[in-house]
């Protein structure tokens, strides 16, 4: 039984880590390419989750299908946000960028409260109750699907960054934007696209969120903080680090939930405690970073 418990919580942690990774990808991309910590990232995820919820509730569109739709919708919203708010402050001090994105975050949270009230909503599909039994471990169908799609999104982003031309331009700009400009990369366009792609990924992650968590206006803020924790764990602005951080956070939360009395409540606080401990011990994040 002991082993079964351990394996079960390991599996749960692994699966939730997939979701966390999906949520963190876009944040990592924006930080890596533009050097901006986007506080509104979680709210983009939240919008993706609401979009999925409403498409399912009103039109009966399957959440798995909404992944693409949410991604597309948030891509355009992302372009809009970038053009009118982020672009004017690209060269501002980091604290101004923090305040601006924090402002967007607060705005979207409260907009969601005004439009959709503070109720917690969830998407329940025909396959929500199904689970897969792998020996001693039971895995929920939606969680498994979510995990697989999150892995898919990660692979897509890596492929995009390493093989596709615009993705390679993003990597070049993240290394050195002046040099990139000198060799003929349109830096502004690259930033715009990077922000749009990041929001699209967040929208897709939001669709995943809506299937295995409650959707409510503050869910984005909670996820933002988890994503910050992951960034701090994995080093700022690199994707392998974000995956590593997601794994650590997912597993820690899951094990605390299993082995600590009243653990599921305490697990909610793990990310905050980890952020503080790591930053206090090592002010630039656990793995180190290229950027200040």
């Amino acid at each position, binding site marked *: 039984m002991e082993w079964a418990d351990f394996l079960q919580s390991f599996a749960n942690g692994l699966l939730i880590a997939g979701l966390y990774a999906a949520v963190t990808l876009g944040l990592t991309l924006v930080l890596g390419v533009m050097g901006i910590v986007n506080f509104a990232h979680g709210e983009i995820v939240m919008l993706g989750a609401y979009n999925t919820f409403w498409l399912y509730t009103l039109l009966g569109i399957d959440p798995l299908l909404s992944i693409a739709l949410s991604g597309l919708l948030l891509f355009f919203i992302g372009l809009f946000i970038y053009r009118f*708010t982020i672009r004017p402050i690209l060269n501002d001090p980091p604290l101004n960028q923090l305040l601006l994105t924090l402002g*967007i975050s607060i705005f979207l949270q409260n907009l969601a409260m005004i439009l959709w009230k503070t109720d917690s909503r969830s998407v329940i599909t025909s396959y929500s109750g199904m689970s897969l039994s792998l020996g001693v471990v039971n895995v929920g169908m939606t969680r498994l699907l979510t995990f697989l799609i999150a892995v898919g999104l990660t692979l897509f982003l890596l492929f995009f960054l390493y093989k596709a031309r615009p993705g390679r331009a993003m990597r070049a700009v993240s290394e050195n934007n002046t040099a990139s400009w000198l060799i003929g990369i349109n830096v502004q366009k690259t930033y715009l696209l990077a922000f749009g792609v990041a929001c699209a990924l967040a929208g897709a992650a939001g669709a995943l969120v809506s299937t295995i968590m409650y959707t409510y206006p503050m869910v984005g*803020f909670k996820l933002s903080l988890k994503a910050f924790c992951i960034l701090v764990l994995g080093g700022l602005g690199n994707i392998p680090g974000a995956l590593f951080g997601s794994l650590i956070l997912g597993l820690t939360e899951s094990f605390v939930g299993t082995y600590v009395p009243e653990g599921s409540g305490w697990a909610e606080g793990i990310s905050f405690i980890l952020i*503080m401990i790591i930053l206090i011990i090592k*002010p630039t994040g656990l793995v180190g970073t290229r950027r200040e």
Partner: protein
Amino acid sequence: MNRSFSWKKALFIVLLLLFALWFPRLVDAYFLHLAVTFFLAMILASSWDILARTGQVSVGQAALFGIGAYTAALLFKWVHLSPVLGMLAGGVVSVVVAALLGYLTLRLRGIYFSITTIAFAEALSVIWLMTPAVTGGAMGLSTPPLFGGDRQQAYYLILGILIFCIGVVWMIEASRLNFAFTAVRENEEVANVMGINPTRYKVLAFMISAFFTGFAGGFYSHYNTYIIPYEVFGLGISIACLVMPIFGGLYTIAGPLIGTMIVKVIEEYLRVTVSYGHQIAYGLILILVVLFMPDGVMGIWRNKVLPLFRTVSR
């Protein structure tokens, strides 16, 4: 900022003070209550600004506010400490927490510090929810009405604290601390070379800021008679603490006060018109200030309005 003494300014301040003292006789209970919440918010705004003077942007003032609130409420519950002493204790405990946290985290710069402060407030919220035996948990704590529900006395108490707080800000501005804080904010390395220990001044600013924030928390718990962790450790308070002074204009005495007035009026209006999400104004204001009015209302006053009068008089 302006250390030259001017009679006009002194007269204005005296008149303002007389008006504030006379105010409770002029208005009904609602406006008195409104004035109390405005003054409370002004204290939060001014004390956030004190910390901001060292370049540290706290997004977790709610942690200090909540600690002050719970210290006062718990001391009342345990030993029936008189409310005013409880508030003072709230301020003191917040100072101790800020000193510890500050010592640990003020090595962090910019965004790292901001993220840590949010994480701290959220962590406290979780701890409070998970230890209901001590803290009352999600059900919160309640205390009997302050001064038996006498709003006038509450008004004069919070007015006194506000004046004390403004006095401290004024003293900081008039003293060498102002130069130290500014030097640390502008460039830490240079400040260090000039013989200013950045960590020391950052922790000092954090502690001063914490005292007033904690005291305000203590006042809030007694005045409101009821506190829950979601609210006093919540993001809403942290955001209010920073939006008001940023909107008014940072690093000035009047900026946070004026910012609070305007933001609170907007918030009160929205509170009546929309049932949820009246903090949407805070988000919008933050976006607009960063994009279009970098020095807040005070900046517009200095750069746009004052020059108009100058050309007229010439």
